């Protein structure tokens, strides 16, 4: 099962309501995935030259101020810090690799969820409604968000096994389905230097995109080649810095519905996830075609379908 949603706002006036609309969408798909939930929200961009890093500790109440103070000694000034339940967001002027290494060596107990100018990934085990409440998603603002409710089939129910999986700065992926060639592909990607944290098949899809993008492919090209290299069932929604993309496998085993108005583009595993959106009765509603790459972004604010 699993449920996935994506919401991209074309109308900036709706941005303060992004979290409210998005939380309703994700909560609706609890029935498709009651194990755990996660999301990537694209809010205010970090100032030029700075990055947002989201880290997670297994328990609430962790001393994040101490982490920020120690980080300040290394980078030369105090990072911005906001604690959100088990997660904390740092805003820092530093290189991603440097940050990741510092966290890995100084605080191996922490998991780095995301690094980017705009994107923040948060995820936890538990009923989606509880996860949404814990993070206060309904009050969040931003331009777009993607999310996932999980019913685990291929690997354990853990926070690390929850979606989204980050695939690079401001890039992440949620997956409904199961891949059948993930073990072989994981070994090949490990030989290419990619690092895996779980046995999860969706993490392999995320790493595959990271690898293709690292080699200079566009997102559209990376998704098109995924059609050849990934074997199994999938509907993917991929969050990008300025939009999102949708791809379904050629057999289209897993559901997907899209809705578009002048104000937004939305994607959900089922139409009922979209029914809380404004003017949904007048939206254009359709099913994305199998084996077809769809992308939306703030530059075009329009659909570009690339036939694979």
């Amino acid at each position, binding site marked *: 099962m699993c449920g996935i949603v994506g919401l991209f706002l074309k109308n900036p006036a709706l941005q303060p309501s992004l979290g409210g609309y998005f939380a309703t969408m994700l909560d609706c798909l609890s029935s498709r995935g009651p194990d755990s939930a996660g999301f990537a929200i694209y809010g205010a961009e970090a100032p030029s030259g700075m990055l947002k890093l989201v880290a997670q500790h297994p328990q609430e109440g962790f001393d994040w101020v101490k982490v920020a103070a120690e980080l300040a000694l290394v980078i030369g000034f105090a990072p911005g810090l906001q604690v959100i339940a088990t997660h904390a967001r740092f805003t820092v002027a530093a290189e991603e690799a440097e940050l990741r290494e510092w966290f890995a060596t100084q605080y191996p107990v922490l998991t780095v969820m995301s690094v980017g100018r705009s994107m923040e990934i948060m995820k936890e085990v538990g009923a989606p409604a509880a996860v949404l409440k814990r993070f206060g998603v309904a009050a969040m603002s931003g331009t777009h968000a993607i999310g996932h409710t999980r019913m685990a089939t291929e690997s354990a129910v853990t926070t690390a096994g929850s979606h989204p999986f980050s695939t690079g700065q401001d890039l992440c992926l949620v997956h409904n389905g199961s891949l059948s060639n993930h073990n072989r592909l994981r070994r090949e990607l490990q030989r290419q230097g990619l690092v895996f944290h779980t046995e999860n098949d969706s993490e392999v899809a995320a790493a595959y995109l990271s690898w293709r993008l690292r080699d200079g492919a566009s997102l559209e090209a990376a998704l098109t080649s995924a059609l050849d290299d990934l074997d199994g069932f999938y509907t993917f929604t991929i969050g990008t810095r300025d939009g999102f993309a949708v791809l379904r496998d050629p*057999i*289209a085993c897993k559901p997907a519905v899209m809705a578009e108005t002048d104000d937004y583009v939305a994607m959900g595993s*089922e*139409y*009922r996830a979209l029914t809380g959106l404004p003017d949904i009765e007048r939206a254009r*509603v*359709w*099913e994305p*075609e*199998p084996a077809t790459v769809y992308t939306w972004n703030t530059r075009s604010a329009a659909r570009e379908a690339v036939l694979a």
Partner: protein
Amino acid sequence: MNVIDLATTPVRELNTALHQLEPENPGVPWRVRNARGAHSIACGLRVPVTVEIEGHAGYYCAGMNQLATVHVHGNAGVGVAENMMSGTVHVHGSASQSAGATAHGGLLVIDGDASARCGISMKGVDIVVKGSVGHMSAFMAQAGNLVVCGDAGEALGDSIYEARIFVRGKVADLGSDCVEKPMREEDLRLLKCLLNRAGAEAQPEDFRRYGSARQLYRFHVDHAAAY
């Protein structure tokens, strides 16, 4: 007219009320407001009642229908009219995957498009799609008629038994053991009747007919390599 608003009434309550109607006296039509993608709306009806659904329906709408007439004034989710036995289901928008799956009888009309696996394993239903159908439509179709006024996706009629398929537009490709067949007078008469019943304006002469080559399901030792 009975009016049920699904914003305030659970689907189960609606279906229970519809199941309690008497076959000899099913009464006035029902109008269902705020479908909002709910699953299993108007499933398992067994009386000649009319149900008008406003908005997009979720999965399995009008599944197992007998005798009833169900209109969906919007799109329908996966498996609309699945295993229908008789009656009419009319989707005024588009339908998702597996529309009319395994249906034994009745008429399913889809004004828009139907996506993949339309009429999968159909067993006698008549399906008229005014738009196009997705891949693997009429997969393992056993009996009945699938009429497509638009185009058909890949592997049309794969492993088909004895159903008839009529397509006006392009066929991406035919599935295993599905072949084009000549349009005979009796086929044109049947098609005209189906188009009339569905309110489709297409001309029967513009369609092509497809059906089973009967090489797969009737085992013949010379064809062992095809299995």
